[in-house]
Every structure is written in structure tokens, then in C-alpha cells.
């Protein structure tokens, strides 16, 4: 039997109750109560993950320049809406319907079926729509990762088209291999809340996009010189990071997929603590390393460090001890401090550090699972990382290339110079600040 992200819920819920019949002490939660709690966990944790869309929007609007700020805001709210629609149209079923150890689910709209529960059979474990809601906010996260990396030069509509394909097809197929009960699940690959399935998938899409799109004009000058283009509003970037940190309790905690037994809530509480401490480790490590390397502490690196810690723990937030969680996060934080300038030296222009944070730490986190989880093997983890990486890199590269060859993905040089806000939106994010038009 495949341990899929969906079946497992049902298994857990049934398990708790089932066990109860033989072990009275554990049979105390009525099935319907468990059903309510499981569903409510999806909803509460789901709204926390939903709010991560705001976190990404603020992080990214803080790290771009003023002339592209309104555009990145628009991309973030639009992609959240579009990802949800596509996940309804194709994504959910491709991810979860009939994968059966294979490589893809089935085509078709999602639809809720709560008939059994309404008739008094609660063995399904949760309300159908609560599960869908929780799964849907994950796909939006994947899409959010891409927007930051490609900011300041990608055109709005091609980006949204890519988002639709990523949310409706590429992410669900990759996810189906494990969460949907596909071949990676059979192999024993472990990715609790998606270091690989969500974050690396987003990271690969960002990487291929960044390569095919090219760097911002003026970012890398002849002679290997790198020209920083500082983010315009760092308090907003800080706010965005805090919102992401908050949302991650939903992301990882909710991925327990059940709240209907003491064992579940104990697991969720452990996950909250580990998630928090990995982020703490990430921020402290990033600060210490920048202080050592540069003699100053870069706020944007500290923020990236916190998120790096969060991404790193996401593949296995349930098993590490608290000090190991700190360590896993700290390694993530350090990796980011090294990866950001490395990508710059490779002339891969990632405006917000999304590739370093989500791809690099997503890989690290996935490989770190065996440190505390005896069910996970290093080679299996590596297989999952490579297989999903290869598939997503190839698929997204093809999509980007086709978009580039057909409708084009990059704005004109002039649009880049005046900024996407004016070129594509016809307005300014801050008309009364800086060079804004409303001052004079």
C-alpha cells in the first residue's frame, strides 16, 4: 500500500479510531469529533498558508526597486488567484486521483464528495473541501517562489501563463510521485511538507526561468563586475519574512493532515517547535556568517536565512530533536549566504534569492531527513531530489523556451528602463516618494 499524502490522512484518522476499539484509552475521541478536528486543522493551517501569499508579496515588493514594485504586487495577487483556479481544473486530480504507484494522476475537475460523512460515516476522516483548500494553498506557494526570482524584467501575462501551467500540470505531476502515492512513495521517499515537492519545484522553475530570461540589464557588467540593485523597502521585506514564518506553522503543522488524536496533536506541536527553531537557526547562522565574511550583517541575508531554515526543515519537521532542528536550519541559513553570491558569479540573476533559498535549501532539507528519520534512506532521498529536479527542470525549461519563442517573456529594454509599473500597469507604486510623478 502506498503511503500517500491523502491516503495517509484517512489511515491516520481511521487508525486512531480503529485502535481505539482495542485500546480503550485511545478510543476517547468520537469519530465525528475527529472528523471535525481533522477538517478544522486543514482550515486553520490552510489559512495560515494562504497568508504566505501576502508574505511573498511583501518580501518581494521590499526587495525589488520602486519602479517594479506595483508589478510584483500584481503578479503575486494574480498568481494566487490563478493557481487556485488551475488546481481546481486539473491540478488536484493530476496530483491525487488514481496515481497508484505511477507517474501521473488523472485529468478532470476536482469535486467534493462528503456524502458518506453527511450520512454518518466519518471514516473519510475530513471534509473534502478542507483537504482541497489545504492542498490548493500549497500550489500557490510554489508559484509564488518563481515571481521573486524573475522580477523586474518578465512580462506580466507570459508569467501568469507559466504560473497556470506550473500550477495545473508540472507541480501536480511532480507531487503525484510522492504525495499522490506514485512511484517515489513506493520507493520510500520522504518529503513531509514539501522541501522538494513544493520548494525545490518552485526553485527549479525559477532557475530555468532566470537562465532563459537573462539577467536584468546592467546587473552584470563587462569584466565580471556585479552591480547591486538594492531592494527599495526593507521593512516590507522584513514583514514578509515574518508572515512567511507564521504561515510555515500552517505549512508544516497542517501537513500532519490530522488533529483527531492525541498522537496527532503531539506531532503537530513537535512540528511547530522544530519549524520555529529551524528558522531561528537559519537567521542566527546567516547573521553570524555575514558578520564573519563581510564585517557587517546584511538584513536581507538574515531574512533569507530565516526562510532558508524554514525550507530546510520542511522535508522532515516531525522527527528531529530540537537541537537537530536548529542545526538543520542553521546549515540552511549558511548555505544561502554562500549561494547568493555564487549564483551572481554564475550570472544567474535572482532578484530576491529565491533559488538559493528554495532550491538549494530544499535539496539540503530533503537530504537531511535520514539524520533523524529511520524510515528515510539517503539514496532514496537523493533519487527523489534528482528525479523531481530532472523532470521539473526539463518541463519548465521547455515551457519557458516555448513561451520565449512564441509570445516572448521579456519586456522591452525601454520598459525595463522606465520600469514595469509604468510600462505594463501605467502607474507608480510610490508616486510621491523618490522620483515619483506626484511630487512636482
Amino acid at each position, binding site marked *: 500500500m502506498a503511503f500517500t499524502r491523502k491516503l495517509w490522512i484517512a489511515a491516520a484518522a481511521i487508525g486512531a479510531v480503529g485502535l481505539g476499539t482495542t485500546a480503550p484509552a485511545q478510543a476517547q475521541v468520537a469519530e465525528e469529533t475527529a472528523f471535525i478536528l481533522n477538517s478544522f486543522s486543514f482550515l486553520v493551517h490552510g489559512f495560515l498558508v494562504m497568508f504566505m501569499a501576502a508574505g511573498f508579496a511583501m518580501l518581494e515588493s521590499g526587495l525589488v526597486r520602486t519602479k517594479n514594485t506595483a508589478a510584483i504586487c500584481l503578479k503575486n495577487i494574480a498568481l494566487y488567484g490563478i493557481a487556485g483556479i488551475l488546481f481546481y481544473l486539473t491540478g488536484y486530480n493530476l496530483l491525487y486521483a488514481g496515481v497508484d504507484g505511477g507517474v501521473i494522476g488523472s485529468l478532470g475537475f476536482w469535486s467534493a464528495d462528503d456524502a458518506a460523512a453527511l450520512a454518518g460515516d466519518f471514516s473519510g476522516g475530513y471534509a473534502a473541501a478542507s483537504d482541497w483548500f489545504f492542498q490548493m494553498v500549497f500550489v500557490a506557494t510554489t508559484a509564488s517562489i518563481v515571481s521573486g526570482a524573475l522580477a523586474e524584467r518578465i512580462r506580466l501575462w507570459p508569467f501568469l501563463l507559466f504560473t497556470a501551467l506550473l500550477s495545473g500540470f508540472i507541480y501536480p505531476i511532480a507531487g503525484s510521485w510522492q504525495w499522490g502515492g506514485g512511484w517515489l512513495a513506493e520507493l520510500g521517499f520522504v518529503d513531509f511538507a514539501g522541501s522538494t515537492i513544493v520548494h525545490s519545484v518552485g526553485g527549479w522553475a525559477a532557475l530555468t526561468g532566470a537562465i532563459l530570461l537573462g539577467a536584468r540589464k546592467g546587473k552584470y557588467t563587462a569584466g565580471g563586475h556585479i552591480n547591486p540593485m538594492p531592494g527599495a523597502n526593507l521593512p516590507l521585506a522584513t514583514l514578509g519574512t515574518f508572515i512567511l514564518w507564521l504561515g510555515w506553522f500552517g505549512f508544516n503543522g497542517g501537513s500532519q493532515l490530522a488533529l483527531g488524536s492525541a498522537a496527532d496533536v503531539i506531532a503537530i506541536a513537535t512540528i511547530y517547535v522544530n519549524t520555529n527553531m529551524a528558522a531561528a537557526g537559519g537567521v542566527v547562522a546567516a547573521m553570524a556568517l555575514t558578520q564573519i565574511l563581510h564585517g557587517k550583517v546584511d538584513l536581507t541575508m538574515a531574512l533569507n536565512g530565516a526562510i532558508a531554515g524554514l525550507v530546510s526543515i520542511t522535508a522532515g519537521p516531525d522527527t528531529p530533536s530540537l537541537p537537530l532542528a536548529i542545526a538543520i536550519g542553521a546549515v540552511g541559513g549558511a548555505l544561502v549566504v554562500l549561494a547568493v553570491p555564487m549564483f551572481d558569479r554564475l550570472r544567474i540573476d535572482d532578484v530576491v534569492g529565491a533559488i538559493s533559498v528554495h532550491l538549494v535549501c530544499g535539496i539540503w532539507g530533503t537530504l537531511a531527513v535520514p539524520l533523524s528519520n529511520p524510515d528515510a534512506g539517503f539514496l532514496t532521498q537523493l533519487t527523489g531530489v534528482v528525479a523531481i529536479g530532472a523532470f521539473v527542470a526539463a518541463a519548465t525549461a521547455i515551457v519557458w523556451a516555448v513561451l520565449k519563442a512564441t509570445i516572448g517573456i521579456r519586456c522591452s529594454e525601454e520598459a525595463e528602463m522606465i520600469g514595469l509599473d509604468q510600462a505594463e500597469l*501605467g502607474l507608480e507604486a510610490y508616486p510621491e516618494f523618490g522620483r515619483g510623478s506626484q511630487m512636482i
Partner: protein
Amino acid sequence: MKLILAIVKPFKLDEVRDALIAVGVHGVTVSEVKGFGRQRGQTEIYRGTEYRVHFLPKVMLHIAVPDSLADRVVEAIQAAAATGRIGDGKIFVLDLMHAVRVRTGEIDEAAL
């Protein structure tokens, strides 16, 4: 001495600065300004209403130079700042009577 006021497009500033250094200018003072001229501002739309932005971002440079340098400086700016497209800006030359370096009290050409 001359005080040269140059109004140029913002993204040309770095090239103009390099050109000035090349001809031997040691200092420049720059301000953000908005220009109105033959170049027409773009039309924007805000919440369904069109409007025109009349003033366009420019930077203005104040450069004090010895008389001997003035012509070369004007030429250098013009060469560096021109794109050939409308709105490239203007260079104005004023007579400068005195100059003082605040730090030392040095005056006139020694102050530049």
C-alpha cells in the same frame, strides 16, 4: 571661472560623470529635478481615468570649472548625454565670480 548647469536624463548620469572626470573635473553637485519641454510626458491611467504626466525626471548638475576648462566640459557633457532622442536636456553656462572651499577657505580656482 564658469558655473555650468547641465540638465540630463537620469540614466545618463554615470556616463556624464565619467566624461567629466576624463576631462579633469574634480567635483560635481547633482540634484533630482523634473523637466518640462518639447518632450511630452506619457499618458497614464489610474482607476479608469487617463491623465498626462507633464514633468519628466531629469538630473541637474552644477559644475564649477576654471574658464580654461569650460568649453571642454560642455562638449564632454553634450557628447556623453546625447541619445539623439527628444528630451536629452540642456547645458547652461554662467559666469562664476568667486568660489570658496569650505574646509580650507581656499578661494577661486584653488577651491575647485
